[in-house]
């Protein structure tokens, strides 16, 4: 009897717990779902729909259906589009090559706890915490044609921001200045997390520093590498702030994100056209996201 009462009691507790659990789970799944649908999917679907229209952003009644006209215009008679695609790709490759490798090297060096490494760590990370307006201003002081530091020191007359053959690279250097510190910090965190017994084992086996890094440390940091990969792709696709500060993404600094903004923010109100550009950007990002997810899932299955 006693046991059956106890069992019944525990069952009712279970039931009570069950309803509460169910409520908690529903809330935990439901609220994020609503937020994601509301803040991510609705705007995304909205952009896709708007990209087939022409709208000045005021009354909804003013929305006109124009079919694929925006896309055709973008590909055929909108001169900044193809340069923007090219610049985004250059941006991606550049971020992979220079700041990522540099950030990794800095992290490895600073991880050795040499004298003053805290100071260097802060110095390299500082650009990341500066506001972009400030970063733009700092580099303007370097790059200004008539009054800039670089031209003063080298007695050159290079139009760093204005010459469309040069300005993309000038901006990329400024971006790298910021991005390197970011990557460095991520790798530094990763290196700190590596079990020191791995290094000791490698040392006992007589592996050189370089060999230890490439054959032991680097493979162990795979999750960090994955994160860095994703960050670089995301950063290069949403690259925007610096070029916007410099010249609103014109004259050699066209980027898709800047073109979207030019068309919908402020003075111009081509919401349909801007949405079409945003959709193109979304499609490109989805390609990378799909590749990334496939790799991650394949790994999980293993």
């Amino acid at each position, binding site marked *: 009897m006693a046991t059956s009462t106890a069992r019944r009691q525990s069952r009712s507790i279970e039931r009570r717990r069950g309803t509460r659990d169910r409520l908690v789970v529903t809330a935990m799944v439901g609220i994020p779902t609503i937020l994601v649908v509301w803040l991510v999917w609705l705007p995304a679907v909205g952009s896709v729909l708007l990209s087939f229209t022409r709208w000045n952003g005021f009354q909804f009644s003013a929305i006109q259906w124009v079919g694929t006209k925006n896309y055709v215009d973008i590909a055929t008679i909108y001169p900044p589009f193809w340069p923007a695609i090219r610049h985004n790709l250059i941006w991606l490759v550049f971020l992979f090559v220079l700041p990522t490798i540099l950030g990794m090297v800095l992290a490895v060096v600073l991880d050795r706890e040499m004298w003053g490494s805290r100071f260097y760590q802060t110095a390299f990370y500082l650009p990341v915490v500066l506001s972009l307006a400030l970063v*733009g201003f700092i580099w303007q002081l370097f790059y200004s044609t008539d009054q800039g530091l670089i031209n003063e020191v080298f007695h050159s007359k290079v139009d760093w921001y204005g010459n469309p053959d040069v300005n993309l690279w000038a901006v990329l250097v400024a971006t790298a200045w910021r991005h390197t510190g970011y990557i460095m910090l991520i790798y530094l965190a990763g290196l700190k997390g590596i079990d020191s017994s791995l290094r000791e084992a490698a040392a006992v086996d007589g592996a050189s520093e370089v060999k230890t890094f490439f054959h032991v440390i680097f493979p162990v940091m795979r999750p960090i590498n994955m994160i860095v990969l994703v960050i670089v792709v995301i950063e290069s696709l949403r690259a925007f702030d610096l070029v916007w500060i410099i010249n609103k993404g014109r004259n050699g600094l066209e980027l898709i994100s800047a073109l979207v903004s030019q*068309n919908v923010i402020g*003075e111009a*109100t081509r919401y349909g056209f801007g949405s079409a550009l945003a959709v193109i950007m979304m499609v490109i990002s989805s390609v990378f996201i799909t590749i990334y997810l496939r790799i991650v899932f394949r790994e999980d299955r293993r």
Partner: protein
Amino acid sequence: MARPPARGTHTSTIPLSVRGVDRRTILRGAVGAGALLGVPSLLAACGSDTGTSSGGGATAKAGNVSFGINEAKGSGPANERLQAMADAYAKKNSVTVSVNAVDHNTFQESITTYLQGTPDDVFTWFAGYRMAQFAESGQISDISDVWPLDGIGDAFKKASTASDGKQYFVPVSYYPWAVFHRKSVFEKNGWTQPKTLDDLKALMTEMQGKKITPFAFAAKDAWAPMGTFDILNMRINGYDFHMELTKGKQKWDSAEVRKVFETWKTLLPFHQENSLGRTWQEAATSMAKGECGMYLLGTFVVDGVPTDAQEDLDFFTFPEIDSSIGSDALDAPIDGFCVAAGAKDQEAGKAFIKWLASAEAADAANNAASAPFIAANSAASTAKYGALQKKSVEVVQNAKSIAQFLDRDTNADLANTVITASLQDFIKNPGNIDSITTSIQQQAASILG
């Protein structure tokens, strides 16, 4: 990097239906020029009650208002003037004017969301199609009952009128675009202000001989070269053609527009190189230093030169190119105020805006600030005006036709996403006139069509 306080690149959209407002008739001819500064007889007609609050049919009572201004605190005289007007009004009527000061560019870039959110009762804005577009879409209030305004001429009234024939704007100030130079540099070299293109070319060649770059030039801000396009188009094809072009009634790949670019191409070698990376402030500095002889810009150029050079500045309107067209047209954008349709208190907003257009408001602004604006109200005191302002008044008075500015007269979408980039492209590749004009026209047809 920031735009000049007084300038404002705002723009205008030509919604199809707004095309009824014919700007040619708006600011044109003797009527336009005279009335822009307020014809004295018109004032006299108002008789003895030319006070500050007389005239007009508005019965709006002063009340607490919020005032959105496009000049951040500490940004200089432009902010001081607006703040002074708010203070003077608050003191006069014992009401509260809560000033919402926003950075100039930020204000413009967020204007559409600002108006659709919770806008201030009264906000700073620009005359032109941009104003008309907001009237069209119901974002700003019809304030025709505060008109007529004492001391505000007919041309200003027309510039404040939208396509439905009603007023949605009150003007407060304006500033002309002209060719600036240092008096001392001209005197030292015995140069005189050129009257024709040949004079100008002779002068430029002489300047080059003395190792002075004739024209300072900046095109990093994409609006800056529009001033050159405007004046060349008005000199070569005339004001009427210019206005028709801005309204989409003429084609951008026409022979006329190409001629403008061809002429500009011959002038480009006399301009400062590397203009696409230079801000107008830097260009103004090189004129102030005497490295460049002249600079075509709005009167806000004084904000870019050191104080000692400010006194030394003089200007002339761009010389004549075609004698059958003359040189009596120029850009002189008008700044002013609107009442937001979403304003909490329309009546208080109207009472405030009516006062803002008064001579009393203009005086309050100019007396409190370190630099004056040129008041739209003809009864405003000119005591604070320097030589530049006085000459500006005179130049505008003598002009037969006045345009706002390419990006204020033209459809905003076309001006900001197409013409800006195309002008920069031309400066980069002056040889590509055909492909550039063709591209503008293709896009114009798509945007306006």
